[in-house]
């Protein structure tokens, strides 16, 4: 499902606002005017005025000649931005991502929102009718891209809801002005007789760029969804950051501790309210001499437990050099994730990996000794013993295949197979005796071979023939011979592990 956008066009934004405030103006032709080069120029006209042939850009004197009863009001500077911002905030009830599109539009990102109103058509109808009830004359359209929604809202004649992936077909009959182009480019297109988007959309791109500039191609791509278009949302996400300025420079560990406690409490309070937890946090200490001291911590799972986070920071407080004193503490949560508040179990004998206490323990261990000391393993689909398990990326990950128990595997494995001296009957028998670390072992019982091929798509080399052997003392080993038996070459035997 692609992203969906709705473009709302307020056809008479400013005059509608005046009509809302002064209902008696509804039937009266009136215009808004602002001084321009020593004369009054019309900047907005309402519907009755437009019906009598008055449009923006005319001089007030000319309009008065046409309609003697015309009312002229002074334009309020910056009104349209103010109105759009307020309307954008009002629209946040429909979607969290609303952006203004000056001078007379709003863009809402409605991906995944429309179904709450029972589909896109009732959704659009709801927005439109409520804005009309306010007294605004609006047109709106839904499409996959901002460009297409904008075009259909202003110039579309067929349907306001463009189905997913069909924006190209809906753009073809529209005039070039629907692509949000500069007036000069529009003028040139018009002179060349290109009255519809469809008449030039399939022209070679190099020709279009040469004649009309890169801007035309960019607008076209944006409307078709081949180039992303980003609008800044009105409601910007607040960064998770707390600041604590100090009246006197702080130089002691106790002072830093108190500052940290306060910052954590404030931050955790906010995180708790928003049901979020932090994964990474950084404490920045701004010193009097413009130096910045930084310590950071990480957690295994999102946490808003201020005591636990304090413990993690506490291990690093000694690394902060206060110098001449710290005047500002800033605590920022660089990575924040949603936390699921599970119901506390009343009684459990042994915890599980979802347990908060276990996660906090591991945070403490990694915080003190260093990252990369905690390992958890999941089965992997390889026969090669060293690759038969893989590191789990998180504590919560569960194995997607079962652990194999059909083959004997030693409980302790050497990190590197060690070369041993053996005397073995040829060609495929287990050794009769072998010498490992200077000690001679006589093999009494043996099992094998279990041939494990090297995975040629990962590495090259000879296969291994594994034998489980037991010596006269009952000590059990995992030995292997590298490669095939060959008369000419002495074959290599290795010890790889110890069975329990």
């Amino acid at each position, binding site marked *: 499902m692609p992203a969906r956008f709705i473009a709302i066009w307020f056809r008479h934004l400013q005059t509608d606002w005046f009509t809302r405030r002064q209902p008696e103006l509804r039937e009266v032709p009136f215009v808004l005017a602002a001084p321009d080069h020593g004369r009054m120029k019309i900047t907005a006209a309402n519907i009755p005025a437009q019906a009598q042939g008055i449009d923006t850009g005319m001089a007030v004197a000319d309009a008065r000649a046409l309609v003697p009863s015309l009312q002229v009001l002074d334009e309020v500077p910056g009104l349209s931005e103010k109105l759009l911002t307020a309307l954008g905030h009002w629209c946040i009830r429909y979607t969290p991502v609303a952006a203004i599109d000056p001078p007379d539009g709003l863009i809402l990102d409605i991906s995944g929102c429309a179904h709450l109103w029972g589909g896109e058509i009732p959704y659009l109808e709801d927005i439109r009718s409520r804005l009309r009830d306010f007294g605004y004359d609006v047109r709106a359209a839904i499409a996959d891209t901002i460009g297409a929604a904008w075009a259909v809202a202003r110039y579309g004649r067929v349907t306001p809801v463009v189905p997913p992936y069909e924006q190209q077909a809906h753009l073809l009959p529209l005039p070039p002005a629907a692509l949000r182009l500069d007036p000069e480019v529009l003028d040139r297109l018009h002179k060349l007789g290109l009255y519809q988007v469809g008449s030039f959309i399939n022209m070679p791109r190099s020709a279009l760029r040469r004649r009309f500039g890169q801007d035309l191609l960019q607008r076209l791509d944006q409307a078709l969804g081949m180039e992303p278009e980003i609008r800044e949302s009105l409601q910007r996400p607040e960064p998770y950051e707390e600041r604590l300025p100090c009246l006197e420079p702080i130089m002691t560990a106790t002072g830093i501790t108190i500052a940290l406690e306060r910052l954590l409490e404030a931050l955790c309070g906010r995180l708790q309210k928003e049901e979020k937890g932090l994964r990474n946090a950084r404490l920045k200490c701004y010193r009097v001499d413009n130096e910045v001291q930084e310590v950071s911590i990480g957690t295994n799972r999102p946490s808003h437990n201020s005591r636990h986070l304090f413990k993690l920071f506490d291990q690093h407080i000694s690394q902060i050099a206060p110098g001449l004193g710290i005047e500002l503490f800033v605590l920022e949560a660089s990575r924040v994730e949603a936390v699921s508040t599970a119901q506390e179990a009343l009684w459990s004998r042994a915890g599980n990996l979802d347990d908060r206490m276990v996660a906090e*323990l591991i945070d403490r261990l990694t915080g003190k000794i260093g990252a990369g000391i*905690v390992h958890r393993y999941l089965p992997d689909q390889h026969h090669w013993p060293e690759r038969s*398990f893989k590191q789990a990326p998180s504590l919560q990950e569960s194995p997607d295949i079962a652990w194999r128990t059909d083959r004997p595997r030693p409980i302790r494995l050497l990190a590197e197979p060690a070369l041993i001296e053996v005397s073995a009957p040829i060609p495929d028998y287990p050794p009769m005796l072998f010498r490992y670390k200077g000690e001679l072992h006589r093999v009494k019982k043996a099992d094998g071979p279990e041939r494990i091929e090297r995975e040629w798509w990962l590495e090259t080399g000879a296969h291994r023939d594994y034998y489980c052997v037991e010596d006269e003392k009952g000590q*059990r080993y995992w030995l292997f011979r590298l490669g095939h038996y060959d008369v000419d070459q002495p074959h290599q035997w290795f010890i790889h592990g*110890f069975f*329990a």
Partner: protein
Amino acid sequence: MPTTKADIIAQLQKDILLLQGHQPTLNNAAVDVGLGPLREAFPGGVFPTGHIHELISMSAEDAAATSGFLSGILGCLMQEGGICIWISTNRMIFPPALQHFGIAPDQVVFVDVSRDKDALWAMEEALKCNGLAAVVGELKEISFTASRRLQLAVEQSKVTGFVHRHQPRQLTSTTCVARWQITPLVSEQEERMPGPGFPSWQVALLKMRSGKPGTWRLTWYDNRFHTIREAITALPLTPLRKIG
């Protein structure tokens, strides 16, 4: 009301254990670790969970046998999805093999540190956390003070701790509740089948607080311990020299 002589003796034994400072394990927390024949060695006949056990191994082969025996006990402790923290200074455990001893290897969190000091600190932190089924520490030396710190942590949280000491320089006295030494035994194979049989060990309980030390021969199959019935000529256990 205890009436028979045996009842009276059992009651008296219980009372003596309490006087000796042994904390009885609560009935609902008692875990059958499957060490059936060893039961008479334990105080009150229950494997002491919530304590520190010390396991000694002198060679690489002994270490493997010890790891196997330890994994068998852990498998019983970690039922119901419990998790275990396995702290080691020189880890050789092959995780997929733990499945043979009834442990889901993904339920074990391995912590690799380079120094004994860090391992002991990590063990103490882990033992304080009562969300765990067991904590295993593989290290070389543990001092009396360090073992006491672990014991204090365990008394709060009731987590079972295992300290596997590989080739310790000397056997110092510790506060651990038990000291085990496990050595491999020649495996038996039924009906003269070829190949090595099930893992078999000579389990020596060198020290047991309020219990009876002894030596047993155990084997592991069907996901539990079994005693080896037939008399096998057990190798004489090399006596450990105790210093200090």
